[in-house]
């Protein structure tokens, strides 16, 4: 009998061990995932509005802050967003109706004062009886550049600008239009928030739940040729002063559908052989369609993935985020030729194309884009400071310099002349990606950096779904306006 009793005890221990294991899973391993569940918003909101939550700052000014409600309100505090439209994609919001998004969600623990770094503060508060104070988060964003980028974007279309510091990876601007006032979703009434959300959702171009710069992908068009150049220089196909076949049309093997240079462009001026400088400045297609057949799909995969293709920028705290795409399934020569000019299944976010420019700008070393400059406790003690991190070595300094030289061409005499600013040495590459066939609509791009020899900023601009005529010079002008703000020109 005693042996059976001992075995019963073992069974009891097993039962209690299951409870301990499950508790550990819920409260430790799965805690973050459960905390971030969409159904959990009201609990977060309650906590967030019952004590002063940390601010999100740009240049020392709060873009999101907690303000005391009048005595007797349901919540002791409310969240107020300043310059809300400028920063909606970064701060996100706390909404009774629409949940918690972006930095408000990913940095919740820090803002609430409950991150691990603030553990000792909490212990101290336990004894002094003070409320836990959230930490403040200073962003890498430069308010002036952010504002200039927002103003430069047209009101009528969906467009995005990302500006990076290529030497450090700091994100200096990340803004999209059309934007929205996050305060409308943060109202402390579920019904009002729901009504506002319904109203805002009427504009199909507004993105309430994600940041277009890291989540929306479109064909990068000719800006993708920068990656062809990196791969081509590395395999030795391209040389800086080489000349390449520039036929008006070129038919890849195995298809009857020719790849052509753009009808209205200047490529036709040199219909046979053309210098690489001319080809890049005028953004001719056929030389790249031919080059990529030699370079090969695998080499392109390797190069694009060094720049960040096929992986998500999920360290930014902007969720959801999407991976830019270089197709992994084997492509036919015809599809490969389309991929070379940033069409077919090639897709990129605006952040991705800014990273391409930044890697070339910084002599082939791509710094990891970061959004948070500093975290300070309520006593202004620094809890976390900016540390530049290398993302990857994307290519050699020589190749980066060659491509920089080539990128001066479009601004001086090619497709990006409208970006030119007297006295500023700018490197850029434009792109115009057709949407489908026969829609007449394009995605317009530009990416580049300045000053070309010692870059301070790398930029990518995209305006989606516009006619070719609307696209003409549009992104170049936007880039010019942003650079004017950066360099006070």
């Amino acid at each position: 009998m005693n042996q059976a009793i001992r075995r019963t005890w073992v069974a009891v221990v097993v039962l209690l061990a299951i409870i301990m294991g499950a508790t550990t899973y819920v409260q430790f391993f799965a805690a973050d995932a459960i905390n971030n569940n969409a159904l959990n918003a009201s609990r977060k909101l309650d906590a967030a509005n019952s004590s002063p939550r940390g601010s999100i700052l740009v240049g020392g000014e709060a873009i999101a802050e907690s303000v005391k409600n009048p005595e007797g309100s349901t919540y002791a505090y409310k969240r107020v967003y300043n310059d809300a439209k400028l920063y909606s994609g970064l701060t996100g919001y706390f909404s009774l109706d629409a949940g918690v998004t972006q930095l408000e969600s990913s940095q919740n623990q820090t803002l609430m004062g409950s991150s691990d770094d603030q553990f000792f503060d909490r212990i101290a508060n336990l004894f002094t009886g003070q409320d836990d104070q959230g930490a403040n988060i200073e962003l890498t964003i430069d308010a002036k550049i952010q504002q200039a980028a927002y103003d430069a974007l047209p009101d009528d279309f969906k467009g995005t600008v990302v500006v990076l510091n290529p030497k450090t990876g700091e994100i200096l601007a990340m803004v999209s239009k059309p934007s929205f006032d996050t305060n409308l979703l943060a109202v402390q009434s579920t019904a009002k928030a729901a009504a506002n959300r319904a109203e805002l959702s009427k504009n199909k171009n507004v993105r309430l739940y994600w940041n277009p710069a890291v989540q929306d992908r479109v064909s990068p068009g000719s800006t993708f040729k920068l990656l062809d150049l990196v791969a081509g220089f590395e395999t030795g196909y391209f040389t800086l002063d080489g000349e390449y076949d520039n036929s008006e049309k070129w038919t890849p093997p195995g298809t009857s559908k020719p790849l052509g240079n753009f009808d209205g462009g200047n490529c036709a001026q040199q219909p046979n052989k053309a210098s690489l400088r001319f080809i890049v400045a005028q953004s001719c297609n056929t030389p790249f369609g031919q080059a990529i057949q030699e370079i090969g799909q695998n080499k392109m995969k390797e190069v694009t993935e060094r720049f960040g293709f096929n992986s998500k920028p999920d360290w930014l705290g902007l969720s959801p985020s999407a991976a830019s795409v270089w197709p992994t399934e084997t492509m036919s020569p015809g599809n490969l030729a389309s991929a070379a000019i940033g069409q077919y299944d090639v897709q990129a976010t605006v952040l991705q194309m800014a990273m391409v420019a930044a890697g070339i700008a910084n002599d082939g070393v791509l710094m990891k884009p970061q959004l948070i400059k500093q975290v300070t406790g309520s006593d202004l003690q620094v809890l976390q400071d900016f540390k530049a991190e290398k993302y990857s070595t994307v290519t050699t300094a020589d190749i980066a310099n060659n491509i920089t030289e080539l990128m001066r061409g479009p601004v001086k005499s090619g497709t990006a002349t409208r970006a030119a600013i007297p006295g500023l040495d700018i490197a850029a590459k434009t792109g115009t990606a057709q949407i489908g066939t026969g829609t007449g609509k394009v995605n317009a791009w530009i990416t580049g950096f300045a000053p070309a020899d010692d870059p301070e900023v790398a930029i990518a601009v995209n305006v989606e779904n516009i006619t070719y005529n609307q696209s003409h010079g549009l992104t170049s002008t936007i880039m010019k306006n942003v650079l004017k703000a950066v360099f006070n020109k």
Partner: protein
Amino acid sequence: MNALATDAPSGMNKRKQRPQPTRRTLELFLLVLALGVTALADYLVSSSVGASSNDTSWITHVVVLGALGLGVNISLRLWAKYADPFILPVVVALNGIGLAMIHRLDLASTSAAGSNAATSQLLYTGLGMVCAVVVMWIIRDHRVLRRFTYVWLAASVVLLVLPLVPGLGAGTINGANIWIRIGSFSLQPGEFAKITLALFFASYLGSKRDLILLAGRKIGPLQLPRARDLGPMLVAWAVALGVLVFQRDLGSAIMFFGLFMVMIYVATGRVSWIVIGLVLMAVGAAAAMMFMGHVQRRVNVWLNAFDPSVYEAKGGSLQIVQGLFAMANGGMVGTGLGGGQPYRIPVAKSDMIYASLGEELGLIGMLAVVCLFLILISRGIRAALGARDSFGKLLGTGLSFILALQFFVVTAGVLRVMPLTGLATPFLAAGGSALLANWILVSLLLLISHNARRPSTGGGTLSTTEQGIIDRKVEAKRAQEAGDAGPGAPARPLTGGENA
């Protein structure tokens, strides 16, 4: 058992040299620690959530709990002085932690109706502890309970049927029909039935185990007991499960069935019973899934808890999901008492108290709580091991296992390890019936441990005499059945207290 019998002489020699310590002073010291934990927790509640209303009820709570705890300690000194010294302090600590949490939720509640659960919990705690002392005083020796085998069976049946009696049953509350109402009091008879069932199984199996084991036909390797030996067991089992089907109480069904299996296993030492039991349970579960709508709903809620449509449905997963949100919010170290939002969880004070505690005490706190249960149940089983009679062994194991299973079933439901069922977390959850029943259960465990630890008085105790009679009967029966009928074997004295 043989091992214990051979151990007895050396043990007795030792006891003669040195008196067995009663450990009542150690118990008192641990009791003060348990009250310290309660006081700290309850003070934190009063000083944070209750700060605006200058709440000082924590003092009342601690004083009442302390006075009653001391009362139990003194009663044990009088009537069961060798009782296990760890059981009482652990139970008081659990009871106190539960009380502090209920108090905390009371203070957070805005409605006047829902804000005096702590007072009623304190009242029932007091009543429970008084009942425990009374049981101890009346019974003194758990072996007297062995005589009422069929009284326990009848009591179990009556208790289980009561909620179905028209006019007495309180109807369906939260999907289960397990309450009765007398005047303004409502009662859960099932909580008491678990004790009477354990008493019935222990006394029946304790006296009939030889017959169940040895009499009857052998088919292959399987020794089948005779139907008339198994009859009363099957009646108990069928009534328990049958009534539970009508009462729609999944949690109690699992608890009773588990009790049944463990006790028959301990009595016979045969794993085949467990296997048969688990197979029956699987068949029962499958049948319940197929034919009972509310079981299907529960399983669906369990599997798809985070599906928004299930979450928002009436009777959906809101309760369990809010519990998980609370626990995840608590994380490793918890928000501290008064720092979280456990009031968001439906039935936070009773069914979901594990989640409420999880939010504010954190993972570290909850592991400590589970460890308290581990200590309590282990000491109960230790008492069963040490008991000198098979009734005591069976009862001690059965009662300890009930506590373990009850805690497991409700907590595993909260943690989404299995579908959530409505059972009270022992000692932590708000609920008068469960508290009363569990305090009585604890007093029985204390009595068994007293019996196990006290110095042996040699032969001639009530136990030995009674057991001798039973054993003689058994032997006579065996002899009869072997066709070797005699007028009765001569009475021979048994050595030690151990039998069988």
